[in-house]
């Protein structure tokens, strides 16, 4: 192949890939624009809010589900994947960015001076989250997580001059750096053993390594340990982003220290992206997705040389094997040749079957993590008196619920891919409903902070007399977080629970049920305080103005709509998961 061909195919691949990456490119451009506009005196007067709003809206338009993706395609020589799952989460994230921009505008935090920095950071993090959702390469996992995290550290310290806020940012950064290091270590172990960073290739290699012939002969058993631990360390990085126990420590402190606006961003966008990535990683290592048929596959293969279970090196290896093996026997006390452990499997069904141990392992780790996360979050939320801290623990608990379908999918993937798809669909639906729940909750907290100057639950007492619409909306949100019909939270939880039933994960189901019972109390306590407790006599005169009220209604009414007519979001969720299995 001549250099010309190489360059040609490279350019073709990049040009093709740009088509599936438009949303992200618009985000990049918006960030640069926001930064640049500050420099010339003339443009520095332009309110960065409008740039942010228009930028994220255009990105949403470019990336939205109205551009159907019939076939998944790999972007940029296989680094990213553009399928309906990506589209769903990208849409979710960008939609959130639009809502978030309006929210910050109404709440007035950040002020106009800080706004360009904050918007640039938010868009940068959103870009990282989009990459997380579409990662198709182990390095992109790391890059995406870091791109999403580093701006978040700065955002957590947004309230400058407030000690708590700076402390939260430092804790977040140190903790995040630690877990990122662990994850990178895990990634290098996995990539080193499997010889590729391209996730589908890694999946195939893993299947080859775990094939029954190897297991019977006891080949590569030590590799399994390295892989298991590598996987565990990658999970640490994901658990950090999901704020799953025991890697959640940053979450309550950061949520208390940071402003409610930043909390909304961290709890919704960050979580959605982390869930998407979790599903991608779990499916990538526990299942072999249907092969991607693209015209440009050749190019993709070319630049991921290692993904080709290529005939060429393979045959070479086999030719070279006998002497190599002898040598190794002499040098190393390792009877198994390295190539033998990776002998290719016949077809996809066989590969999927061979991955059963990986699925069991993932299901076990994730189910365990989900259960303790959920229980810890709910118990810790139980005694909180500060609404932001309560919501922080509620976020942890909700992360636990949202993780549960993934182990269910792992259990089901081998025997019943359709049911596994249903499980992931439950997660996808819940993530969508969760956007409204937590954005609404934190928006209300922020708006009430502006009028009450307090974030203590007891200061909300009897608020229904002053701000009835806000209180009703907040109650809707909290009741939806519990999962009581006819709200979106119920439909989401119901789907998750039925996925658990199908996967016969009875213990997880039991834990989830008990946790729902615990969560009743603390969510309803807030509702009770707002609705039936008497107003404190020292209450400052409170009035919610029209615009925040409208915003609150606009984000909480979808919960009712999705609860009564869940098919609207479910159709999208079904579409999103259609290309995974």
């Amino acid at each position, binding site marked *: 192949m001549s*250099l010309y061909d190489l360059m040609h195919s490279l350019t073709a691949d990049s040009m093709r890939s740009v088509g599936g990456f438009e949303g992200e490119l618009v985000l990049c451009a918006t960030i640069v624009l926001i930064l640049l506009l500050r420099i010339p005196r003339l443009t520095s007067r332009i309110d960065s809010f409008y740039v942010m709003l228009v930028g994220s809206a255009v990105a949403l338009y470019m990336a939205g589900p109205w551009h159907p993706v019939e076939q998944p395609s790999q972007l940029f020589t296989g680094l990213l994947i553009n399928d309906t799952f990506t589209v769903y989460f990208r849409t979710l994230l960008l939609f959130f960015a639009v809502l978030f921009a309006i929210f910050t505008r109404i709440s007035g935090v950040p002020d106009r001076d800080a706004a360009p920095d904050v918007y640039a950071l938010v868009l940068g993090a959103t870009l990282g989250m989009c990459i997380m959702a579409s990662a198709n390469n182990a390095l992109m996992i790391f890059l995406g997580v870091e791109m999403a995290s580093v701006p978040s550290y700065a955002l957590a310290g947004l309230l400058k001059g407030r000690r708590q806020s700076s402390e939260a940012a430092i804790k977040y950064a140190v903790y995040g750096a*630690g877990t990122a290091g662990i994850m990178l270590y895990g990634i290098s172990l996995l990539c080193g*053993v499997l010889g590729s960073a391209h996730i589908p290739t890694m999946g195939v290699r893993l299947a080859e390594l775990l094939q029954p012939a190897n297991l019977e002969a006891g*080949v590569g058993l030590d*590799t399994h340990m390295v892989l298991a*631990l590598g996987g565990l360390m990658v999970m640490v990085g994901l658990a950090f982003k999901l704020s799953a126990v025991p890697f959640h420590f940053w979450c309550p402190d950061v949520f208390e220290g940071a402003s409610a606006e930043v909390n909304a961003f961290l709890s919704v966008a960050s979580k959605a992206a982390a869930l998407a990535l979790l599903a991608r990683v779990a499916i990538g290592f526990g299942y072999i997705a249907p092969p991607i048929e693209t015209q440009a596959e050749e190019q993709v293969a070319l630049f991921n040389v290692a993904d080709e279970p290529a005939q060429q090196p393979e045959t070479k290896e086999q030719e070279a094997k006998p002497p190599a093996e002898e040598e190794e026997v002499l040098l190393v006390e390792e009877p198994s040749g390295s190539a033998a452990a990776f002998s290719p499997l016949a077809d996809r069904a066989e590969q999927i079957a061979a991955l059963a141990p990986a699925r069991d392992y993932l299901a076990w780790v994730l189910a365990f993590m989900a259960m303790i996360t959920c229980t810890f979050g709910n118990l*810790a939320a139980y005694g909180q008196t500060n609404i932001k801290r309560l919501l922080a623990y509620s976020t942890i608990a909700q992360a636990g619920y949202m993780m549960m379908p993934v182990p269910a999918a792992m259990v089901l993937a081998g025997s019943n891919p359709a049911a596994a798809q249903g499980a992931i669909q439950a997660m996808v639906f819940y993530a969508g409903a969760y956007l409204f729940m937590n954005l609404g909750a934190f928006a209300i907290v922020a708006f009430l902070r502006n009028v009450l100057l307090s974030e203590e639950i007891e200061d909300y007492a009897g608020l229904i007399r002053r701000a009835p619409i806000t209180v009703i909306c907040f109650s809707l949100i909290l009741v939806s977080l519990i999962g009581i019909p006819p709200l979106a939270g119920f439909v989401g939880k119901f789907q998750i629970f039925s996925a658990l039933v199908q996967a016969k994960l009875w213990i997880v189901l039991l834990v989830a049920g008990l946790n729902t*019972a615990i969560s009743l109390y603390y969510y309803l306590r807030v509702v*009770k305080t707002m609705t039936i407790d*008497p107003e404190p006599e020292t209450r400052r005169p409170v009035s919610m103005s029209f615009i925040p009220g409208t915003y609150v209604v606009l984000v909480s009414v979808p919960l009712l709509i999705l609860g009564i007519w869940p098919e609207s979001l479910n159709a999208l969720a079904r579409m999103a998961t259609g290309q995974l299995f």
Partner: protein
Amino acid sequence: MTLFFLAPFLLAPLLPLLDRWFGNKAGWLIACVPILIGIYYGDLWWSLPAGEERTSVSWAWAPQLGLRLTLMIDGLGLFFVLLITAVGALVSIYASGYLAGHDRLGRFHAYMMFFMGAMLGIVLAGNLLTLYMCWELTSLASFLLIGFDNERREARAAATQALVTTAVGGLCLLAGFVLLGLAADSFELTDVLARKDAIQRHGSYPAIVVLVLIGAFTKSAQFPFHFWLPNAMEAPTPVSAYLHSATMVKAGIFLVARLTPALGGTPLWAGTLTTVGAVTMFVGAYLAFFEHDLKGVLAYLTINVLGTLMMLLGFGTPLAVQAAMVYLVAHALYKGALFLVAGIVDHATGTRDLRKMAGLIRRLPLTGAVALAAALSMAGVAPTFGYVAKEVFLDAVWHAPFVPILLTVVSVVSSILLVAGAGRVGIGPFFGRPTQDECDPPGMTMQVAPLVLAVAGVVTGLAPQTLMGPLLGPALEPIAGEPVKMYLTLWHGVGVPFVLSLVVLAAGIACYIVRGSLQRHLAGSLAVARWGPAKWYEWSLAGLYWVADWQTRMLQPGRLPRYVFVTSSVLLLLTIEEIVLRGGLREHYPGIDVRPHEAFAAVLIPAAALVAAASRSRLASVAALGVVGYGVAWLFSIFSAPDLAATQIVIESLTVILFVLAFARLPKYTLASSPRRRLRDALLAGAVGIVLTLLLLQATHEPHPPPISEWYVEHSVPAAHGRNIVNVILVDFRALDTLGEITVLATAAIGVWMLVRLSAQAPAKREGYE
């Protein structure tokens, strides 16, 4: 049907307006709504073609999950619909008198209407999940209504307690419904009811029964979940009369009746219901005897009746089912009247303490008459409907399918206490020497409802079959699963029930007369009640709080070192666990050929790291960290990666410089941790390091797929005419990546430039940052 189902929910928000326009007259208008709804459903059912028992409408909700919203009306549903709408109409008239002048009367009406809609939803539900949804909505409405008098702390506590108890029960119910739906392969009630065998053979049948019954028991205040009901008497009296006596607490009864064809007929079902019902019946009657609060007595007696109904449904015989329904009607009539009377008395005298009331009939003659009539019905004195009910009840118990003697004894004792209770609430306050001088006569609006209920109690007693037969007959069929022949009459002839009835009446009257000394003698037994389920509730909440608090204090103290410690330990433990589970590390490290300059790096890096950790001077630490970085760069350069080494050196230098610059702004370094903690941290850090190193060694000695570099080695000369693979990759194979990197660097440079400019522009503002 849809419209009428939704009507209460749609109308509820409008009621405050109605209240503002019409004032106290609004109650009469609002009462038209339930009446119209009742007439509509009655007409709907009675005009069904002969032979059809039910009609339903259904919409898809989330079809792929089997979630549908289905409404269905049959005899049982209609029976409850009429009960709910009739009492609802009366109570809303009463409420506008009771709460006259209250500034939130409109909201009260709205809550009540909302509740009625939800309650109608329960009895009309044709789908398990529809039923569940309405079930939770009634809990919510009950919460709002109990806490309506939110000025009082007790009211708020009681509201929360009732909600938590019933909602936990509700969750059990949901779990039970999901299992039931899976066992029956459908959430539609018609399917569930038709698939009795499949459900009862299913492995999860016991779980279904237990979960569903917990739901029913919490709602219907069965022992040991009964404690919330007396506390719920904090609610305004119309609420007590409507929700906590006539309708909502009957939801559990309804549910059991509804599901009997699918779940009933097994020893588990019958045994649980009978035992819990009988215990509740006795506990309710017994506790009522010692209560002095008028509404409290009524609440405990309601518990008694609810227990009776559960027990009767547990028998499952057609006779018992019939008894249950008859008893239910009788109870709704007399208890409704008595609650409303209690409200009038409370209003008129300002007290609800039974010991402080006497001779009220002179001031409140009509109310006294109503109370007397209701009390007679409650005591089962002919010719009231209560008498008819008591006869059938005793008959059914006498013919109980198991342990009839024991059950009869318990029932008789409870009934005796019930008669005594009837005396205490219906006769005690109204006769004897008056203790109160002041008395506000109640308005007309408050008199109507109790009067209607009491008159109905007497009239239906006179001609039970004619008046109640057409209503009760169809209601029994869906429970028993077969047409039930029933005949109600005032005079049954002399039989066992009649004799028992006389015994009960005589003993009850005796009990009432000597109530004072009986209460004193038996008061000691109440000590047990102090350790009863209400305490369990408190303890479990307190225990949960304690666990939550402890856990949060342990795991979330706000100190970063603790977090890092916990996280590292967890990681270490998991790693070691994984290694041990998989049979330990194999010892096959080949003799690594270490060259001197490699050994130098291997010694230098750890040593520098140690210095960085141990040093007390920031500058020294940073310098040591720099040495670590240079050591790594050294390693890179040894292993033929000069470009990486170069990058590393640049980055390290920059980092050190930045650190040093930033240090000027940091406070003086102090040692915050104790030597012990430092030792602990050092050990942990060392352990993590060692384990990870071993792991890495393990990873490098495993079978590997062909290395990536071979491809580049092969192709670099023919494709790109270059011999230095790194260079070829950078400028040829990954040329666009390199271009991208340059772009990123350029962008970053712009950012830095901007930062420098901004900070130069605004030095004053920077001060604020510190």
